[in-house]
């Protein structure tokens, strides 16, 4: 793997390979010294043009657990806020000898530009670009589902026949986009439940089933329900009348929680708006995978960095 730019481009084999590698990594976090020497001497740069504490710390922790050196460039308090272009920043990082760049950018396609430009030789990982994709989130979600559903040894398996329902703001959600493509590649059946105002144009061409009623969608007994965050920072128009109405129609409240079967997983990419898209009882229930998703996120990102930066594979591609 040279770069990880989108979940849509991932083949089934590569996705399973990443999850299998993450399985091996997951045991490291529990050790007294959670370190593996695999990426000693490699430099991983996290280049975040948008605020993100979770994804950035998850990537940085993953890199540190593999003994890589980590440099952080965040938009605030760096040359980026002084108006430096992506090209100049990339060339600076190249001159510093970066082996991998983890990039988050408000513009869709920025990571691909960085990977294809020739400005920098490093591997590029997309950590979220605009409303386009967030592939490591999709990988960690698929990994979390796989670990729960295939308890025991899940190595080598995909998600064939698993029913996943994604609820909420599909329009602005790169998490939803990446998840739809990856889950589909892995053989899962994806359905969406969202108000029409929060669905993107052209959705009818996606490999998904669309519901305009959450209760009816839940009647189909999904194996996992993924609640998306209402991203108030991206709500520049009146997509729904008010939060209380949204919560009543589209939130996973206590009443809907009780209607779910006992083994339905409740997922959320975080950060959660408790009381809006998900109730506290749902977020804290034993069916919730929210905290596992965070832990699995570190394992997945370790796997991605390891597969990108180690081995002769880099030269051969």
């Amino acid at each position, binding site marked *: 793997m040279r770069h990880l730019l989108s979940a849509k481009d991932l083949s089934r084999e590569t996705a399973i*390979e990443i999850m*299998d*590698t993450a*399985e*091996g*990594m997951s*045991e490291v976090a529990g*050790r*007294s*010294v959670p*370190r*593996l*020497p*695999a990426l000693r001497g490699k430099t991983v740069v996290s280049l975040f043009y948008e605020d993100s504490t979770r994804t950035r710390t998850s990537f940085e922790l993953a890199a540190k657990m*593999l003994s890589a050196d980590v440099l952080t460039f965040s938009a605030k308090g760096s040359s980026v806020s002084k108006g430096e272009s992506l090209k100049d920043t990339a060339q600076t990082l190249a001159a510093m000898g970066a082996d991998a760049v983890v990039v988050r950018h408000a513009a869709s396609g920025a990571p691909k530009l960085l990977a294809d430009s020739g400005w920098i030789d490093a591997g590029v990982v997309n950590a979220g670009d605009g409303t386009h994709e967030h592939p490591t989130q999709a990988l960690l979600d698929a990994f979390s589902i796989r670990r729960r559903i295939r308890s025991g040894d899940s*190595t080598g398996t995909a998600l064939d026949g698993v029913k996943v329902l994604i609820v909420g703001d599909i329009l602005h959600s790169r998490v939803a986009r990446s998840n739809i493509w990856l889950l589909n590649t892995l053989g899962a059946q994806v359905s969406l439940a969202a108000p029409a105002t929060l669905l993107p144009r052209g959705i009818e061409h996606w490999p998904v089933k669309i519901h305009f009623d959450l209760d009816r969608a839940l009647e189909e007994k999904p194996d996992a329900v993924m609640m998306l965050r209402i991203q108030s920072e991206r709500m520049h128009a009146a997509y729904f009348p008010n939060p209380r109405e949204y919560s009543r129609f589209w939130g996973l409240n206590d009443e809907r929680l009780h209607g779910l079967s006992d083994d339905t997983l409740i997922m959320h990419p975080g950060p959660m708006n408790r009381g809006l898209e998900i109730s506290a009882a749902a977020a804290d229930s034993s069916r919730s995978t929210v905290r596992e998703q965070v832990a699995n996120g570190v394992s997945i990102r370790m796997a991605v960095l*390891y*597969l990108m930066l*180690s*081995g*002769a*594979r880099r030269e*051969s591609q």
Partner: protein
Amino acid sequence: MTARVLLQQSDISRALTRIAHEILESNRGAADLLILGIHTRGVALAQRIATRIESIEGVPIRVGSLDVTMYRDDLAEKPMKIPGRTDIPVDGIDGLTVVLVDDVLFSGRTIRAALDAIVDLGRPAAVQLAVLVDRGHRELPIRADYVGKNLPTSLAERVQVKVEEFDGIDEVKIES
């Protein structure tokens, strides 16, 4: 290219039984032992040695598996490998006598990586090494405590160990 079968199933079985007895003899029992197989084929061999020790002593024995991929010194040059799982007893390896098990002992670099991996897992009382085949050509000051078969080889030859759990057959072949 010619291939010769050097050990058959019965030879391998006898060697493992002898190794099990030797481990028990030099450690005076199985009390604080952990039989730790190195991925991939060492895991199967460790399991068989443990089964033999259990039937000799009549007590359960700790078995584990160790993946050393991330500790290899050729990680940057060799084609990348998917790391396997490391399984050790839940209460750790502190104070135990760890018997590492691998199929072939050659340069010693895998064992060097395994020793580093063990250090990251805890502080065992002692570490010993059991191998099915020792083919020589060490590049590091490492030796085995228990050897199934010493095979003098030339560097041009290839030793191939197959175990039933992974390859469907038990045999040791040498190709030249």
